[in-house]
């Protein structure tokens, strides 16, 4: 009886784990399967295509400017990461290591900005982007993405920067180091893991952004990947090229999944530092 109960429990738990795994992975699996189907096979529901084909993958790059869209996304996300990290390192040094009047207020303000709904700044940002002559260009996106990456990177870098030992700083001060040297020569090397974490999270956020990219770009060539996928259309208005869309979705997702799995641990610590502690 006891034995049976034990095995029943074990079986139930195994079932639970299986259900969770299926639930989380099935939609992506289905996108992969669909992307490998061509022609009428796409419209037959079967677990694996009888004749898997890559035609959707070649078509998405030849029939659509998807290569260009990918390039745009890489450029925007990379520039967003570089600018945010540089600004966040300097700002978090000041916020974490130096006492000055108004510091808590500044931290609260930065936290508040991270809560801004994008729609609330959309019309003002649109005006700014046009006034700067950036409409339909990638710098417009880099600039506007600072709205959500900068508060986040500053906040998380500040929590990491706080944990560095003060003895290091004292020694550097005794040696006559300036704050700039302490920040970049003494602390920065120690902050590499934190930089990887926050950089990755900022990259993912920029890679995924949709509202600003949709509003501040006009031509197909200036679009980033999410907008290109959302607006992908076929020969007629009523016929969506699902095979192409699924192929594009897989192309965009695979590097992200790979990145997230490789940096799993640091991503989890970054997310919890950004949300729970914040």
């Amino acid at each position, binding site marked *: 009886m006891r034995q049976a109960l034990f095995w029943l429990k074990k079986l139930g*738990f195994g079932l639970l784990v299986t259900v969770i*795994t299926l*639930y989380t992975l099935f939609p992506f699996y289905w996108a992969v399967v669909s992307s490998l189907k061509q022609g009428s096979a796409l419209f037959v529901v079967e677990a694996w295509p009888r004749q898997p084909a890559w035609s959707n993958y070649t078509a998405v790059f030849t029939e659509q400017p998807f290569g260009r869209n990918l390039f745009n996304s890489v450029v925007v996300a990379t520039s967003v990461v570089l600018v945010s990290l540089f600004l966040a390192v300097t700002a978090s040094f000041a*916020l*974490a290591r130096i006492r000055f009047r108004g510091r808590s207020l500044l931290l609260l303000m930065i936290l508040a900005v991270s809560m801004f*709904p994008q729609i609330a700044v959309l019309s003002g940002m649109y005006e700014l982007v046009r006034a700067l002559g950036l409409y339909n260009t990638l710098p417009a996106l880099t600039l506007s993405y600072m709205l959500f990456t900068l508060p986040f990177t500053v906040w998380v870098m500040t929590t990491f920067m706080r944990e560095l030992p003060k003895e290091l700083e004292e020694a550097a001060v005794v040696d006559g180091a300036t704050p700039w040297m302490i920040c970049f020569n003494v602390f920065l090397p120690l902050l590499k893991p934190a930089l990887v974490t926050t950089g990755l999270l900022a990259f993912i956020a920029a890679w*995924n952004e949709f509202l600003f990219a949709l509003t501040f770009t006009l031509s197909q060539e200036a679009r980033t990947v999410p907008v290109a996928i959302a607006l992908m259309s076929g020969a007629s208005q009523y016929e969506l090229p*699902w095979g192409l869309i699924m192929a594009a979705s897989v192309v965009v997702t695979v590097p992200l999944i790979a*990145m997230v799995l490789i940096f799993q641990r640091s991503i989890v610590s970054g997310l919890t530092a950004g949300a729970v502690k914040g």
Partner: protein
Amino acid sequence: MTGSASPAPDSSAAPPPAPGSQLARERVRAAWLFLLPTLVVLAAVAGWPLFRTFWFAFTNASLADPAPPEFVGLENFVTVWGDSDWWRSVRNTFLFTGVSVTLETVLGMIIALTLNTRFRGRAILRAAVLVPWAIPTVVSAKMWGWMFNDVYGVINEMLLSAGFISGPIAWTVDPQLSMVAIIAVDVWKTTPFMTLLLLAALQILPEELYEAAKLDGANPVMVFFRITLPLIRGPMMVAIIFRVLDALRVFDLFYVLTSNSSESMSMAVYARQQMFEFQDLGLGAAAASLLFGLIALFTILYMALARDSVAQEPA
């Protein structure tokens, strides 16, 4: 808001030189120099655009009319208030937020509790759980849109073969059903986030409490409600409010899944449609300001909670 008023003493910050000394003053000046670029960028992308949005809300600004906008008082707000599409978008947004955050909390808790027990393959499951989080929202929306396709979708196919439905369902076309589809995508995509935050909270709970409960012969359900839940209430509330804030400003899921029909819009979709499709910048700005006010309320609540958890830190 000076350093001395903050609840947590900064043991790690700055070897404090005598206040007012040359060195201290120099450091403070350096701090402001270091902060300046960030503050300028934040003012440019957050402060100024928000101010302009508030201003537009009181004007007849229009994308169709290049003339400088004129002040019209509360007219835009009155129009939004009387628009049934707006109220439908408010209802949709609240329904979406309430249902999806509840489901995410429950599911996230189940998965977090699962991951918190030791079993073979735990690392693999934790990695698998991260996958939906890594997929861009638009891509998730498209993937699910395809699964929800009325004629060729795998979901209809599964429901049909299981005998739950007698004919295919047009999930993303019918406004009532599209809400089901939208919530399904959001729950799938953001439960991992909830799971991670809850798991982080679960992993720092003291082991002894559970051993004591075991000795007392408490059953697992009782242990969960009497011990686990009260202990992780703080982090759980923070996670929930965080998700609520995110859900209230939802845009892409509604936009991509329901192709912008006026029946199924979120508040953000309504505001953007007014601004850019109907070119009525003023009206859209008024709607956006109302949404901002709503989110500001929740933000204040969040900050009150977050401040407590920051104060508990030894930093």
